[in-house]
């Protein structure tokens, strides 16, 4: 996290803010979602390309119940990028 490093540039600062903002938005109304989303943000998220990162941000806007359906594999998102991100999160869940 950039919060641990000297804030030596505005780019660093902005990246740190963005990460913290995502961290908070991964806090949801259900433990299942907390574990999956926060776990992924701390792990697999860094390895995503720009398009999938944007997909992850978009996914966080979904209602909790829909997220649960997707992330537990009960439904599949239509949008291929979101579907990719969901698959990544599910893969990272028990790694």
């Amino acid at each position, binding site marked *: 996290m950039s919060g641990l490093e000297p804030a030596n540039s505005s780019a660093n600062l902005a990246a740190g803010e963005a990460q913290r903002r995502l*961290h*908070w938005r991964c*806090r949801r*109304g259900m*433990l*299942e979602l907390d574990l*999956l989303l926060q776990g992924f943000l701390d792990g697999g998220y860094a390895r995503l390309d720009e398009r999938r990162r944007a997909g992850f941000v978009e996914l966080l806007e979904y209602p*909790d119940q829909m997220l649960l359906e997707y992330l537990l*594999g009960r439904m599949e998102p239509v949008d291929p990028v979101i579907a990719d991100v969901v698959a990544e999160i*599910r893969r990272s869940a028990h790694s």
Partner: protein
Amino acid sequence: MSSIRKGLAKRKFDALVIGAGGGGLRAALQLARAEANVAVVSKVFPTRSHTVAAQGGINAALANVLPDNWHWHMYDTVKGSDFLGDQDAIEYMCRAAGHIVVELEHIGVPFSRLDNGKIYQRPFGGQSQNFGGEQAARTCAAADRTGHALLHSLYQQNIRAKTHFFDEFFAIDLVKDDDGYVLGALVLEIETGEPLLIEAKTTLLATGGVGQIYRTNTNARINTGDGMGMALRAGIPLEDMEFFQFHPTGIAGKGMLITEGARGEGGYLVNKDGERFMERYAPNAKDLASRDVVSRAIYEEVRDGRGCGPNADYVFLKLDHLGSDVIKKRLPGIRDTIMTFLGIDPIESPVPVYPTVHYTMGGIPTNRYGQVVVPLAQSPEEPIPGLYAVGECACVSVHGANRLGGNSLLDIVVFGRAAGNHIIEFLKENRYHRPMHQAGVDQAMARLTRWEQKGDGDTVDGLRRDMQTTMEKYCGVFRTEELLKEGVAKIIEIQNRLPDVRLRDHSKVFNTARIEALELENLIEVSVATVCSALARQESRGAHSRIDYPDRDDEHWMKHTLFFREGRRLDYKPVRTKPLTVESFPPKKRVY
């Protein structure tokens, strides 16, 4: 501090609601519809409150499926509470239930239907006809997403009624004046890191439960007892905090619940030797024994070195013998959860489980109007002017020592509405804001500035982990004098370490580390209240189960605990055994 104070932003409202779950939103809706100027503060986006996780449903004696009436519902709730519930509040809730469900339907909750068009009702544990007779069917549900539907409907209605939302704002502390009036709260905008003073003629706490004081729990991570911590710091006691509902089979190390249905279908528990150990603890009921018996058995197996896994800290729930068809047909949701989180298929492998904390029965003491009540000179229940609480953070007390399934959603909606109505009356009598009390603001501000200290010290994560494991070990399902005494000492030690905790990140914008530090303070306040209350109660009642005092002791302990922060003092007040209009249900042995 004074420089911050000078520039402190302020807003004024008639009513401030802290927490945007079902309880807070139902109260806010009542107020906004009455044209009160109402603000709702929520640390997360409102529809991400924990109400969304309530899947079961909401109880109301509609008699759509089987004969029923509110009086039977009342009996079940009193009995379920192990006679610690207040019978006036329980009567009020059960009588209001039918009306409340119809009202929810009218604001958009899509309840599941019967073929004749009436609302479908399913049977749940603890429901009976005719005061303990045949099974009743009392739970109304919107498929398996009742909480979600309820929360979204209430949120949309609030938007329509022009409730003002402060999304992603964290409440720091209540502000009180010297006369004991609550004047509003100091809150923090997470986005900017700036404090905001919200002045209000009335403040309602609706911040939910506090399952996060335990390592293994089913609660969302937002359930950190913020309202309870604020109440304690404002000199208000917490009631009956020793009563936490445990569920025997949570996924080990994660917390999510595996329903009793899994054992109902024939699943059973084994230790590291493959032994079906429940045969030793409950020779007749075995794996279907009551929740507390199964929970304690798991604890004892692990304690005595018969746990499974590399750290021997869980037991296995075996389902693989049931066969693929049964699991896929009857337990599909459980299978999804297990496969997602553990990467194993219960059709092939046993599932690691451990008791998990599910629900907080205790909380901020209130009467049935939602007014926060404390013992003062005149009576044990005098209202704090301007302060209300509803839902899981409150103790009204309808759940007493144990909550029935389907009664938590009912509780939040019934008393959210009741509090809204009482606030409307209060506002008629109190038309002007009282003068702000600067010392109260300064005190709240100090809580914030404390986290600006720099240097080395314990971390928030580290201390929270220690607190959670301590609570699980010393104040979990297995409680004895010796263990609880040790627990009190250890939790106080953890509390004493709190001033040495330092943040590594002192940035302002979206500093979530700071929020987590403020949450940790609340969690530790509540942990102390819980373990002290549990040590003092020398009986077993409902969810509080003492090995050294295995029986309920109505003569000495049919009373509510009150824990005060100052001096960690305990006090007690009588159970309200007199209902509003019907005869009282006297205590008797609780047998199902």
